[in-house]
């Protein structure tokens, strides 16, 4: 038997839609594999997938969700994002999400405004409205249900947030690194303690 290591977490979309009834709201982190290896690409890394299927879900809901997520993740309120039309076979319309950064002392710092000096855009997420054919193939009526999906690299986002430049350190197990980036046992986001900025 030949097996394939999954190259992205988008497969979880279909598995969920065929096994659950709408409304569907999932977030699915997972380990993925690609034949890549350098400072910013490792053969094993992590993605996180989001999917919402319900009645009346549109691109505006996607934009809000990603804006809110990115603000929480980067713990900053001054996040600027740009949606750029793109193409993925399983979404229509599709959009890539660029996040604004400012170059400070040669390092990319997330945030800033488009007319600031050193401002630039960086692609962080792929997203779109789930293709009606995908919805239909999962046994749902695309006239009744629609929704959005998005996916991004967990390690890539962490590199951006903390200004790390070598992805390989993630999988090295260096105690000094783990101690620096690790959290305390119960240091988890809560509604009372805050989930970001």
């Amino acid at each position, binding site marked *: 038997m030949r097996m394939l290591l999954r190259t992205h977490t988008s497969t979880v979309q279909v598995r969920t839609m065929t096994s659950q009834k709408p409304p569907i709201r999932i*977030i699915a982190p997972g380990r993925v594999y690609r034949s890549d290896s350098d400072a910013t690409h490792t053969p094993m890394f992590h993605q996180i997938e989001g999917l919402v299927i319900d009645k009346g879900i549109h691109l505006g809901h996607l934009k809000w969700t990603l804006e809110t997520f990115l603000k929480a993740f980067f713990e900053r309120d001054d996040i600027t994002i*740009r949606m*750029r*039309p793109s*193409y993925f076979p399983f979404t229509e319309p599709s959009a890539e999400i660029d996040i604004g950064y400012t170059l400070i002392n040669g390092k990319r710092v997330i945030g800033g405004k488009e007319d600031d000096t050193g401002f630039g855009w960086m692609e962080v997420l792929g997203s779109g409205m789930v293709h009606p054919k995908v919805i239909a193939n999962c046994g749902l009526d695309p006239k009744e249900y629609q929704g959005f999906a998005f996916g991004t690299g967990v390690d890539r986002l962490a590199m951006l947030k903390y200004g790390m430049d070598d992805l390989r350190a993630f999988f090295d197990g260096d105690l000094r690194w*783990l101690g620096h980036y690790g959290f305390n046992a*119960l240091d988890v986001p809560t509604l009372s303690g805050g989930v970001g900025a």
Partner: protein
Amino acid sequence: MKFTLSWLKDHLETTADLSTIINTLTRIGLEVEGVEDRSAKLEGFNIARILTAAPHPQADKLQVLNVDQGDGVPLQVVCGAPNARAGLVGVFGTAGAVVPSNGMVLRVAAIRGVESNGMMCSSRELEQGDDHDGIIELPTDAPVGQPYARYAGLDDPVIDINVLPNRPDCMGVRGIARDLAAAGLGTLRPLATPAIPTNGPCAVDIRTEDPEGCPAFYGRTIHGVTNGEAPEWMRTRLNAVGQRSISALVDITNYVMLDLNRPSHAYDLAMLKGPVVARRAAEGEKIVALKGVEYTLTSEMTVIADDNGAHDIAGIKGGEHSGCSETTTDVLLEVAYFDRERIARTGQALNLTSDARQRFERGVDPAFLDEGLEQLAALICAHCGGVASEMVRAGRPPLAPRTVVYNTGQAAGLGGVDVSPEKQVSILQSLGFTVPRHPREGGTPASSSPMLDDELWHITPPSWRPDVDGSADIVEEVVRMVGLDAVQSVPLPRSDGVAKSTATPAQKQERKVRRAAAARGLNEAITWSFLPETQAVAFGGGAWALANPISEELKVMRPSLLAGLLSAAARNQNRSASSIRLVEMGRRYLADGEHMTTGVVLAGDKTPRSWQTGKAQPFDAYDAKAEALALLAAAGAPVENLQVMGDAGAHFHPGQSGTLRLGPKTILASFGALHPATLKAFDLTGAVAACEIYLDAIPSKRGPSAGFMRAAFAPPALQAVTRDFAFLVPDALASDVLLRAVKSADKALITGARLFDRFAGAGVAEGMVSLAVEVTLQPSGRSLTEADLKAVSDKIVTAAAKLGAALRG
């Protein structure tokens, strides 16, 4: 896809500046990957005429020139080029200019005592060629004083965009211009197709015998061409976008492809014999393509052939023998439509990419064969001369019209932007969509939509947009052109009621173990899912090996988490870490599939040296067992019922390891000190303890105890009492067997039994050991009497006796 600004403006009438064009391209989904302004690095290099040239008084190989750079004021320059002479028109770098090839800043300086005010440049110095034998010689009528970049056509910025796989139409400059026009950046100029005179029917018989792979094959001949150089403007554009200029005929076919997304091929008619046919290749048929590379074909591939055999891998690569050369005088032009999938499969099978393949497999415009051939022939006749025949058409391209039913409310309903039907019509029409607008009474009312002015349209997408086949595609076109910036963020409605658990029981278990491990001071690491073969073998062997591993080090899917953690521990030891406590949550890959597992490795000092505790203490098997039991408890395993047994695996020390089992067959964890051979294999020093917890082997809890619900309970008011028992037992008896026997002697009364001492030696017979057990008794209804205590003691002693244990006197 690269193009220049002036090329774009051939198709797009616009007043927009470069930055507006760039921003708009990205905004509408034609992401700009780069803009190259080739004139920037030629700043300060202007066309100049050498007025006088005289020998340098101090150096044989140098001359002193006076040059005119347009202002009529002679400027003195020292020059070493052998071809420098009065009257020559070349390129002069003024003081302050930076030489592109070496970054040198030109200065006014004395060279061997003679002042020099700049430099006359060679092609190589300006990165315009390899020639460095002398300075550039321009035609004598070249405009003196003009910036060289402008003269050489290098002031035309090159824009590089990323064309998405669903947009074949933007593989041609005209398609890009159309998108920009629709985005409001100007108007698309009409495409002029000049009528060319013809000299009668095409003399070559053209056929398609493979209507599946090549539904349409159009052609015509042109007799009497001269295949010299393409016109300079065309060569300049081709060079700018990275296409090497070859000959007029080849350049023109390339230009039409890049300009209009219409690939074509020109055959040297002298090399063809008999009818020219699109047919399936014979199995094993060989073909020598351009550049002399031979390919072996299969019957699943389409070729263009004549009586002599196959010439052309259809739609992918031309043949070596029938291509045009400088001696070509008569040509046959091929403009065909090839099946997208056939092209993709053929290209993949032959591992052959080409600009033509890229376009045919994405889908060229099936309605643009006639006009494409007309454009191509007109350019050839204009620049190579010759007389064209009439067109001959074999087969028909697939032109069945597609209709998409679209409700104008969908722009808001799916796209999240409210766009008036009028605006939507204008966007779609400028993109080439046919939108018949029915008056509201005549159309089907869109009953389910809340928008009153919704209309239902039956839209015909243009022939060049194979990607559009549903209403969501129409939404995308509208939203793309209005701009995704116009989409307003709308909070996702919160679902009603109490939040249900979204994590699966396995995910919740994983979280509990992870948090417990962190709370116990373990550092969570992530190591590779793949191991070197040798490490996998040390852990029982890997069932799955990668077909395309990145390296031998990352080849076999791990059968255990410990190998990766031991490697990490060794790296930490090499970095002088004194106490290493690592945990990993991940999957093992066995023949029967993936298994969620927790691995723990403890290496180095358990406690450092100290005045209170003395020497540093190493980790041992009991530490590993304690971690295993604690994490199993966090995972919800019934730790009270576990048995300690052997067979932890060859990587563990045989006498200092064990498994924790629920019944004899269900192994929930293995633990122990590692085998010295394992330590050696991983270059670890000192004792190392480890455990692995097989999370998916733990039976799942059922009923309310899985949540926050608990049965009612009031702790007994009576005091618990403890009693100690010392048993002489055979050496081989595991203490946990004794403890379980003791505990089950009276399940109502005994709430705990704990081993607190172990003694072998003087006073204890050989092969025996003394185990001291503390038993906790919890009365519930009334206090225990002496008689009660005697009774329970007897039960305990009896239970122990069954295992060969005797109460020590």
